[in-house]
């Protein structure tokens, strides 16, 4: 998503002959951006795993006597009526908490599958080169030529009933090209290094060279792009659900809630703003994490 290295934030530290990943970890622990994003993400994951810790109200049961009650009452911390109620009289806070699951599931699963598919395409194209590379690169170009959001909209409308898995599949279908390009470039660089030539002349098998030498050494740029992209996929899910072609009504999702709240924007802005803040905070956390990881892994900032 964010194509440039960002040299600020990480301080160059003397390398003590450790591996790239240990060094990166040392860097990360001292980066305030990483610490803030890590705290936010841990909080979010707790919300996904145990929503009951944050609210005892149901996100789907509404009490119409609460209808539109916009004034938060601050009766107790993490209380049910902390953020008021929506047009159906449902607790906005409960929906914020329970909505985390859909967003995080989509973000994580799309990122994992995109990394797998894009990674394999990039690895094969970069390692074997020749006609295979040409064919795979052209296919990547074709998918890249379709704007992401537009393509996802077309894919999703082909399904009459959209659910979590359909949304994940649609985002995977169009999202793998970014990773494929980065992986291909990274593999081509690593392929030319001496240890790969040495392994080859020692008679190592293709599979061994690929997975013992190429993959571990070409992984860093892919990890950086994947981490930052995760935030982007969460935003994409929310956008599609907001447009009404992602997750729909009975599903609890921040995008669905923003869509619900838009008609009452003038009179009860809290219905829209609360889930909107959740989406933005989540995306922010993952993008900050991606930035921090990039700084730690980018050899130029050492």
């Amino acid at each position: 998503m964010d194509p440039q290295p960002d040299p600020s934030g990480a301080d160059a530290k003397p390398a003590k002959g450790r591996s790239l990943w240990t060094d990166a970890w040392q860097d990360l622990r001292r980066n305030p951006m990483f610490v803030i994003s890590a705290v936010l993400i841990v909080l979010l994951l707790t919300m996904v795993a145990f929503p009951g810790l944050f609210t005892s109200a149901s996100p789907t049961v509404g009490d119409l006597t609460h209808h539109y009650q916009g004034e938060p009452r601050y009766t107790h911390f993490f209380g049910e009526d902390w953020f008021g109620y929506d047009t159906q009289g449902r607790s906005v806070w409960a929906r914020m908490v329970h909505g985390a699951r859909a967003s995080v599931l989509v973000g994580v699963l799309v990122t994992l599958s995109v990394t797998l598919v894009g990674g394999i395409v990039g690895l094969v194209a970069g390692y074997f080169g020749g006609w295979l590379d040409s064919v795979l690169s052209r296919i990547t170009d074709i998918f890249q030529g379709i704007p992401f959001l537009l393509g996802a909209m077309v894919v999703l409308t082909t399904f009459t009933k959209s659910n979590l898995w359909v949304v994940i599949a649609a985002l995977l279908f169009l999202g793998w090209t970014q990773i494929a390009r980065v992986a291909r470039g990274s593999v081509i660089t690593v392929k030319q290094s001496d240890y790969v030539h040495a392994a080859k002349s020692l008679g190592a098998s293709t599979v061994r060279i690929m997975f013992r030498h190429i993959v571990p050494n070409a992984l860093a740029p892919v990890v950086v792009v994947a981490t930052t992209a995760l935030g982007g996929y969460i935003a994409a899910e929310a956008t599609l659900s907001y447009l009404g072609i992602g997750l729909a009504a009975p599903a609890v999702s921040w995008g669905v809630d923003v869509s619900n709240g838009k008609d009452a924007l003038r009179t009860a802005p809290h219905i829209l703003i609360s889930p909107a803040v959740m989406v933005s905070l989540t995306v922010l956390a993952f993008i900050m994490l991606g930035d921090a990881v990039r700084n730690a892994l980018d050899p130029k900032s050492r």
Partner: protein
Amino acid sequence: MGRYVARRLLQMIPVFIGSTLLIFSMMYALPGDPVAALYGEKQPDPAQIAAIKHQLGMDLPLWHQYWNYLIGLFQGDFGTQIATQRPVADVIEQAFPVTIRLTLFAFVFTVLVGVLLGMVSGLFADKAFDRIVLIFTLLLISIPSFVLGYLFQYLFAFQLDWLTPTVQDSRDIGQLLLPAIVLAALSLAYVTRLTRTSVAENLRADYIRTAIAKGLPRRRVVGIHLLRNSLIPVVTFLGTDIGALMAGAVVTEGIFNVHGVGNTIFEALNRREGSTVVGIATLIVIVYLVASLLVDLLYAVLDPRIRYD
């Protein structure tokens, strides 16, 4: 240069065919039947539907339909909207200028503000201003455009009453300002960050030191030497970003009720109107391909070391 352009144009053909075929087959797989939908609640006569489908060429195999579509496309025929019997080209002709205006507005905003902010924060890297710009762009990247759109609408239209919440006249630049800024926000953040990094990096380059050592005035060093070289990655990004901007218009146009391509495509998707969606998507793919070609040609202008033969 001429041969390079020709080669690039030839390379565009498979990508163009591939992308349009992909969109075309996705629409073909749509479960809804636009012809049957014409009859609404009434029970349609199957023979009549078959006749209409035959007339529209919808009973042909997919490859044949796609072939007919491509032939029509070269004659400026984007197909026919089934519900209204209007040629899709007409619909596009009506909605396209609105989106072009919005996108162009957003684009100019992105370039002017983004490059300026990026330049200044790159020149003063790691100073307070730079930190503020970094945080500001981080926030812009994190807030999805539909959130930003409603936030701005609430703030500037409902609370402050500075602007109209929706666009009544798309020729009024003042009314388009808000949607254009919302549409531009994400690109603006990327352009700022790209320019900043590029400027900060090039500031340490040998040719800048040489230029300063030669005694060139600072304005010339920054304006000609530094900016020109720093803009190459920015131009690359802007080229690929035009397609994304136009696709992003789907969301922005919806919020601010702009009657452009984005709105049209969204309504067409809801009606399962394949021909309209394919037509507009094809157009956006063409815009994307042409923009990336222009970017490659612009390289030569920005960096004389790059020569095409």
